[in-house]
């Protein structure tokens, strides 16, 4: 390696994003707090239908009421709960499944590893989003089938990451040393191999949460996501679609909320990435 390539490898453009990141963290914290304290903050019961329909924003209803006379602000606060929880689980479950599968495959190797790699290769070449619709359709709408569909299709990336890392770490001396000391397979895997492998997965998890949020919103927009009537941001946009001409805010605000959550999470993901590059 000559001097020039050395410096090129060492050099990483620093993004001067301190302020942006701070804004992102604050926004995300606010959103999470709003979701936690939704019952306290809501002016009204999100499910209570009234004859006070399609009111523009006012003191009683800061974001107005929807076509069924429900308070939109309350629905949005409760929708935050739905979307944040679904986002975490729809991204977290695949990570959990992928980590377990990848760790086992990487650690034991052999035919299990070959099988996992084969399945992963094929899944990678399949159209994930279309299968997502098909799976959710087959399983019927609702939270459980959403999570099953995301879990079935999302584990592959994590399994790959973990498998590669496990195989790499496994080759290192200290693992074989502790193995010789007579620790069980599980102990070696959990204590020594996994902590070293998880960092990359976490980076990907932050990216994945944004994708999951979009996926949930889109499926709910299609009417294939959460159960009808559950407050959810994508579903709220869908309900407002026919009212776009007269009540544009009904579609605008839930959509903005999705963007705020997604962008803040993405800004955090950037932070993780940078840490990864520096370390």
């Amino acid at each position, binding site marked *: 390696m000559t*001097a*020039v390539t*050395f*410096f*090129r490898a*060492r*050099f990483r453009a620093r993004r001067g994003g301190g302020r942006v990141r701070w804004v992102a963290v604050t926004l995300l914290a606010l959103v999470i707090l709003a979701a936690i304290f939704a019952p306290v903050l809501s002016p009204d019961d999100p499910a209570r239908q009234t004859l006070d329909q399609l009111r523009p924003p006012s003191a009683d209803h800061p974001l107005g009421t929807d076509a069924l006379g429900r308070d939109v602000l309350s629905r949005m606060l409760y929708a935050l709960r739905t979307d944040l929880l679904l986002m975490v689980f729809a991204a977290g479950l695949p990570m959990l499944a992928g980590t377990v599968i990848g760790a086992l495959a990487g650690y034991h190797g052999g035919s299990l590893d070959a099988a996992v790699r084969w399945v992963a290769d094929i899944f990678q070449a399949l159209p994930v989003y279309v299968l997502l619709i098909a799976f959710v359709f087959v399983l019927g709408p609702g939270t459980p089938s959403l999570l099953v569909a995301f879990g079935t299709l999302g584990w592959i990336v994590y399994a790959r990451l973990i498998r590669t890392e496990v195989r790499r770490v496994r080759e290192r001396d200290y693992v074989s040393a502790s193995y010789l000391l007579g620790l069980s397979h599980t102990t070696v895997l959990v204590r020594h191999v996994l902590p070293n492998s998880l960092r990359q997965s976490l980076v990907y998890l932050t990216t994945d949460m944004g994708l999951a949020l979009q996926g949930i919103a889109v499926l709910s927009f299609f009417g294939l996501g959460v159960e009808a009537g559950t407050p959810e941001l994508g579903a709220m946009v869908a309900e407002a679609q026919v009212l776009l001409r007269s009540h544009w805010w009904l579609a605008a605000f839930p959509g903005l909320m999705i963007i705020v959550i997604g962008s803040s999470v993405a800004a955090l993901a950037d932070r993780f990435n940078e840490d990864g590059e520096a370390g």
Partner: protein
Amino acid sequence: MTLLAVDELRVSVRRRGTELTVLDGVSFAVGAGQCLGIVGESGCGKSLTLRATMGLLPPGATRTGGDIRVGRSGLAMVFQDSHASLDPTMRVGTFLADVVRRRRGGTRAAARRQAAELLAAVGVPDPDLRLRAYPHELSGGTRQRVSIALALATDPRVLLCDEPTTALDVTLQAEILRLLDTARAERGLGVVLVSHDVAVIRQVADVVAVMYAGQIVEAGPAADVLDRPQHPYTRALIGAVPSLDGPVGPFRPIPGAPPDPAVYTPACRFLPRCGHGDAACRGPVPGVHALDLRHRSSCVQHSTHHKERT
């Protein structure tokens, strides 16, 4: 006649928010028909010196000081790795004719003819056939000849060569060095050749500058520097090269590693690896330039010995 003079060149690199001075007052000059050899371990800044002179610093590196006087003459550069340094998607002839036309104008056909002549001049057999080849289809030696032809196509007065033979085996190494030497003699080129290999430097250089940790530590006529080295680093560097023509000595790598740019000081930077340091080495040591043919080094021990003896 001096074709290129570089005076007090300083380059800094940004690493995790701090500016590190990696080239610290490098000065050298090269005249017509002269070959300056810059030698040093990898990481000492010799490639960066050429890149800075050429005005092609990698991202993150900036020139913070110094003066580069090129006169009316043009500069061209030959790179180390001919595999990476030629555009893989372009036929050799297309690229070469492009460069010729940018420089000299004329029709496509004329540029093509001149490209073939250039290839023949650098000793590529069957130039018309080679013009139609992609870089990956050529052997390493031919590729490096093509790189030299490309550089010569811009009619430079000074040729900067960054480890031009490192990627090649010994036989090819000698051929490429001979080719550079012929080009120098025939065209009156000034050549600056950078290498970590003392044997290569010995073969072609008239003047030698030894670089260590971003500075020139010893410079002078090749025979003086390589046969009567003053600086302990130069001595170690020569000792680290197995020699066939000199007295056969054991191969001794230099113990330790060069310092990181983050800990560069005005004191002697070779001190931690040098066996003969004292308090004087911990003070500021003199800078050395290669602007003329006097033999000098930055080693304070040597100059005191020298004074004692005279």
